[in-house]
């Protein structure tokens, strides 16, 4: 059969027409459209019912209320601030907002692990059952106690504001070891200063809500100070015009142009580490021009005038010291701040009715004791402690603490041992000096006595301790290291046993006290979702260890579960009948020290129900009308130091004075000064930077593997560097490759390095980025308190 041209065309035409009449082409077009959108390798998030759970953020001691959105009750997808919460009223910090990336982190420890290889070998970890792991630890504890060495057990916890910390205290008291430490922070030194000046064990509470003038010596208010979100809100409050409320003037003193410095109403740039000298210079002007609160000083202050010590020796007072040594001209040459500016600041400070002085190092580390005392003294002079009550004291435990531990002979003997490495000269006050560095030092060098069992709880000293190499050495020297970390971090890598804690979103816990806040505070953190892995709350682990030990240890920790202990707290609140359960409507400015708030609760069950629903318990701080010092006054000359400072010591050793510790190293070889700083988008603590937060880092802070140090352009040019150039940073503690950011944020001769980078553990999203600032800085032990202070380190920067 032949097919003519015409027939062919007819056939083709018919075929096209026929096909178009069928659904085939439309179906194919539709399918291919769907197919192009069907990317099977791209995750399709599971859908379902969306609910919200309320809790408290445990990622720092800031106590923020959170609400977490869940899909089908088991998939947490979004954290936001609880708008009804007294601390944060809806806002969050970036670490809290990125919190779920820790919950779902690939570097979580999913079950108890035992190191079967050499310590520090990441491949040596093998699963072990909870029963077996607890048996091992209990056996070790029993053995050490039988050998009469309970003090050879030590613990470092990073969670100092939770009932777990109290459990540790109770456990160590009953077991018989003095070696319980918390990760170092600024309150380590302020608590000692407060104990010496006021005779009380308490945290300082700043009434910043009613302040009209805030003079801040270096505290990183906007970079994560105290309760970071609360600090942010305070700053915002100062920036908001409110009818009838005088505006708050915020003056910031710091060597570096931090964000706080940039955002302050006025920034006073001073030489690194000289903030205390400036405070004393201001005190000089206040005294010389009689601008200080004379009535308060005459009535309630000891040591302002010359005094006689217990041995009958005549001592110079604060007035004579400050007038003699800290004239504006003298201070100007120390600090680099003009004498006129010092006078002007003093007069401004004196003019204000509600002025307060804040202070703190840029990286929450203990401060030089005498410097803490200087800022306390300045606050005393402006009357911040007087009836104006711009500063008051909040005891670390708002109510009766746990029942006294039952202690047998072993416990008494062990507790009576000197904490490992603690210098004999530490002041004898109600506050136990938290001498972490001295402890690690002695442990690393094998001094005094060995540590056979070291617990590490919610802390990462192998990364986060200034001079972290010391922690690594110490970890290697300890007999057995037991980590409770939820994550495979730098420290748990050196553990023999990891008993993973629930993550911050999975556990029931609490927050006792809000750093810096002018009220007593208690919040309960309820679990947001059930544990993802085979983990156990450390509180419960401790209770079961105590039970396994039996005897007085078990008697001292009688609670069946950690939850029972928290319920006891609620019962204590109900019983004390003081304080109020509040939401966001609570105004801290309405609290007056010494005027306890009326309770709005009755039964313990009522308190528990409200606490677990996101309400917080608050109460007024103590009124500062009685001082438990030898003179029963606020002591500018601390008689408490008589016991630890030698009797023929100079008069100024009892008082605030400018006492910088010289950084080590040769100034010729290491001509620059390295200072470190924090930022809210770089997590410096127990948790590393989440991937969400790494995205925020600008490319002149982190470029691939390299961190940038800030250098003043004039210094950079002198060193032969160019912007973004690769350079070698050298300090007495180490050497590291960095890049250079030319920035007029620091004075000539100073370089600034951010904290929070340079992790070596975790996963590819975290590790190998930049340099760990803790490995570069030099720690200097305060000669009085023995605490490890950090202020500046000699350094060299040269072209790589």
């Amino acid at each position, binding site marked *: 059969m032949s097919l003519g041209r015409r027939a062919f065309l007819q056939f083709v035409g018919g075929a096209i027409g026929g096909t178009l009449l069928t659904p085939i082409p439309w179906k194919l077009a539709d399918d291919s459209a769907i197919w192009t959108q069907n990317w099977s390798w791209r995750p399709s998030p599971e859908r379902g019912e969306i609910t919200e759970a309320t809790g408290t953020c445990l990622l720092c001691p800031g106590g923020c209320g959170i609400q977490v959105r869940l899909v089908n009750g088991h998939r947490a997808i*979004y954290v936001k601030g609880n708008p009804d919460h007294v601390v944060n009223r809806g806002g969050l910090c970036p670490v809290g907002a990125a919190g779920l990336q820790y919950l779902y982190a690939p570097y979580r420890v999913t079950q108890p692990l035992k190191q079967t290889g050499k310590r520090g070998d990441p491949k040596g970890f093998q699963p072990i059952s909870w029963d077996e792991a607890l048996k091992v630890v209990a056996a070790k504890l029993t053995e050490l106690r039988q050998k009469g060495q309970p003090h050879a057990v030590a613990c470092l916890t990073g969670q100092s504001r939770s009932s777990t910390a109290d459990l540790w205290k109770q456990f160590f008291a009953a077991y018989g070891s003095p070696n319980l430490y918390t990760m170092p922070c600024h309150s380590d030194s302020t608590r000692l200063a407060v104990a010496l000046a006021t005779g009380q064990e308490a945290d300082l509470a700043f009434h910043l809500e009613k302040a009209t003038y805030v003079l801040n010596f270096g505290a990183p208010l906007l970079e994560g100070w105290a309760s970071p979100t609360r600090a942010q809100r305070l700053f*915002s409050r100062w920036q908001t015009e409110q009818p009838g409320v005088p505006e708050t003037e915020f003056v910031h003193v710091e060597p570096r142009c931090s964000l706080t410095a940039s955002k302050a109403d006025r920034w006073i740039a001073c030489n690194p580490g000289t903030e205390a000298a400036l405070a004393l210079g201001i005190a000089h002007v206040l005294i010389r021009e009689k601008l200080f609160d004379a009535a308060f000083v005459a009535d309630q202050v000891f040591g302002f005038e010359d005094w006689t010590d217990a041995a009958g020796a005549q001592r110079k007072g604060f007035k004579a010291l400050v007038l003699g040594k800290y004239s504006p001209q003298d201070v100007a040459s120390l600090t680099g701040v003009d004498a006129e500016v010092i006078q002007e600041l003093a007069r401004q400070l004196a003019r204000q009715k509600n002025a307060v002085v804040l202070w703190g190092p840029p990286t929450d580390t203990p401060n030089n004791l005498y410097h803490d005392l200087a800022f306390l003294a300045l606050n005393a002079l402006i009357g911040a402690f007087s009836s104006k009550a711009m500063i008051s004291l909040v005891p670390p435990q708002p109510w009766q603490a746990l029942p006294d531990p039952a202690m047998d002979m072993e416990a008494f003997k062990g507790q009576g041992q000197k904490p490992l490495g603690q210098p004999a000269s530490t002041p004898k006050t109600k506050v136990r000096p938290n001498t972490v560095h001295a402890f690690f030092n002695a442990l690393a060098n094998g001094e005094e006595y060995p540590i056979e069992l070291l617990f590490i709880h919610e802390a990462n000293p192998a990364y986060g301790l200034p001079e972290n190499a010391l922690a690594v050495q110490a970890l290697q020297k300890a007999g057995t290291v037991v980590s409770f970390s939820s994550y495979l971090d730098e420290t748990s890598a050196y553990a023999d046993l990891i008993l993973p804690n629930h993550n911050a979103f999975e556990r029931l816990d609490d927050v006792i006290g809000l750093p810096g806040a002018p009220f007593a505070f208690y919040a309960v953190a309820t679990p947001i979702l059930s544990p993802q892995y085979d983990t156990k709350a450390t509180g419960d682990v401790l209770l079961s260890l105590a039970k396994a030990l039996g005897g007085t240890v078990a008697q001292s920790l009688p609670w069946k579960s950690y939850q029972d202990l928290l319920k006891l707290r609620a019962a204590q609140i109900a019983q004390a009948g003081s304080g109020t359960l509040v939401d966001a409507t609570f105004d801290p400015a309405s609290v007056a020290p010494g005027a306890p708030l009326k309770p709005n609760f009755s039964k313990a069950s009522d308190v528990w129900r409200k606490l677990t629903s996101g309400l917080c318990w608050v109460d007024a701080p103590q009124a500062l009308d009685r001082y438990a010092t030898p003179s029963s006054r606020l002591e500018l000359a601390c008689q408490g130091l008589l016991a630890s400072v030698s009797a023929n010591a100079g008069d100024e050793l009892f008082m605030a004075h400018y006492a910088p510790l010289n950084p080590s190293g040769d100034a010729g070889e290491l001509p620059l000064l390295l200072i470190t700083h924090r930022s809210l988008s770089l997590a410096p603590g127990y948790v590393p930077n989440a991937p969400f*937060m790494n995205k925020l880092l600008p490319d002149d802070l982190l470029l691939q593997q390299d961190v940038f140090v800030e250098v003043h352009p004039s210094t950079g040019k002198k060193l032969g560097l160019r912007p973004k150039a690769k350079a070698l940073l050298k300090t007495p503690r180490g050497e590291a490759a960095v890049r250079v950011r030319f920035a007029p944020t620091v004075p000539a001769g100073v370089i600034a390095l951010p904290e929070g980078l340079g992790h070596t553990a975790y996963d590819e999203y975290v590790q190998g980025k930049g340099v760990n600032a803790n490995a570069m800085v030099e720690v200097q032990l305060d000669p009085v308190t023995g605490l490890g202070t950090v202020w500046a380190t000699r350094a060299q920067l040269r072209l790589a």
Partner: protein
Amino acid sequence: MSGNAHSEHAAGKVRYGMVIDLDKCTGCGACAVACQQENNIAFRPDESNKLRTISWLTLYRLENGKDYPEHREAMLPRPCMHCDSPHHAPCTFVCPVNATVRDEHTGIVDHIAVRCIGCRYCMVACPYHARSFNWWDPKWPKTMEAMLSPEVSPRMRGVVEKCTFCHHRLNRARDRARINGEDPDGVEYTPACVEACPTGAITFGNLRDPHSQVAKLAKDPRAFRILEKLHTEPKVYYLSSEQWIHKQSDNDLS
């Protein structure tokens, strides 16, 4: 599209906009973190190549250019400006496939990733660098897939994405309004960044509602917009009492 094409109201009664108070902003980045988790924004181990990174809300550092100790810095969060210029925003004008369009009932400039062909004309056109391109398929660590939101689809390699003013939250708010028998147009809602800000620096709402906080703040003497000279009519306003910050608003942001 928000699906309100059938609205009885005249188009243009609602214009969602934002005012960011730079005096209050501390550059902490909580807004940008909240944005990332709300919108399933992908991340990679190295995020330091800013030409390759995906960011809907970027924090820029502004400097006053003076030497120490007169030096000052400020942070400027930059979401999509949702330009309100007549007829078209710069990006919608150039899109060959209508993947990015402005909803004239809300003023929101949306981007529909599955329509996008990845030509990136819009990225070139946008004077604010508000758009990002997916150079790779998004990949989350296996355990982190559990925290992906079902309300926003993860995008794929080869498409552009950008801030949507949390459009899905608007849809949810509109649904709620309908259920409650209220008028869904001009309904109030809060994008993730606004919700997260600890200092309350970001205000969001209907710019055409004279009683709204956002409309009042947009008329504040401290208010300015970035690159006004281009007449893109951004719906994101900034507040600052610093003259040096105002002066930088007409520079480009690179």
